[in-house]
């Protein structure tokens, strides 16, 4: 059990330190203009990366599977102005059905 506790405590401290590093180093200072320009593009870049890895990643491999079908259904629902939560449910149901059948 000692291994587990060491991993938990070190992971917790490391995660907190990673999140805290920016604020501790910067305090309340504004970022330099050039860095702000980069930061302004961080959200689209990170979101795209998160979507791709969660859609196509599986155990360290690129995988095309039922998740893409679910995403397509959600995309179509959004184009037809469905509420975001409706799109989420449609995507989940599509994937759940596909996993039952396949």
């Amino acid at each position: 059990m000692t291994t587990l506790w060491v991993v938990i405590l070190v992971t917790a401290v490391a995660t907190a330190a990673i999140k805290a590093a920016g604020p501790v180093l910067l305090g309340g200072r504004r970022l330099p203009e050039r860095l702000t320009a980069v930061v302004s593009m961080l959200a689209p870049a990170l979101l795209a990366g998160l979507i791709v890895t969660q859609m196509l990643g599986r155990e360290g491999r690129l995988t095309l599977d039922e998740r893409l079908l679910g995403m397509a259904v959600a995309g179509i629902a959004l184009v037809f102005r469905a509420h975001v939560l409706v799109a989420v449910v449609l995507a989940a149901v599509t994937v759940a059905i596909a996993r039952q059948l396949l």
Partner: protein
Amino acid sequence: MLDINLRSPMSTDERHTSDGFAAGMRAGMPFALATILLGIYFGVLSQSLGWDAAASVLFSILTFSGSAQFAVAAVLGAGGGTMVAILAAVILNARFLPMGIAVAPYLKGGRWRRALEAQAVIDSSWALASRGNGRFDRAYLLGATAPQAVAWMGGTAVGVLIGDGIGDPNRLGLDMVFPVLFLTLLIGELKAGGRRAMVAAALAAIVAIALLPITAPGIPVLACCAAAMVGLYGRSTGAGS
């Protein structure tokens, strides 16, 4: 550009209300609902690995990071060592470094108060609180994280108590919830950020696809941050005021 209805808890209308915390909480609710189930799953999984119940719950309270915690469980469950487990978690969470730098100027108080507030940075809340041109809404960030924190910690506790029996929630398609919600946030960013945002997102997607098969989990998303460098080119709208 697609005309997509974003009238949701995360609609732009609500973004500038004075009560940002409450609006943030509402925006965080869909994420929180999915997080409860993931938390239960984590609790159950950790029990199946023979973890001390207190360790599982404390892990969720202290680290509050689904991706890192599932990675640790996977590594230890497969008989991996202490260092491998810690390294996997650190790599997965390394993206919080640039995200923390981004929000730092918008938090409140001195360095340590800001460092404490930055603990509320998680993918969903950070993206929800993004206001374009590199600006962030602090109250919205804190509000969006609050229900998700309760959901993750509470879910883990429930899972530990249940011990077994709910099975893999992905059989219900739960793994679609975050990507679809992230997609709606991305569409909002693309609308606000124009062509540069589209280039950044496209580059990031290419980087992620290229690195996914050849790097450790966490590296692709971290490397995507480099795509934000397009912000340095062709600054047509200026970089904030």
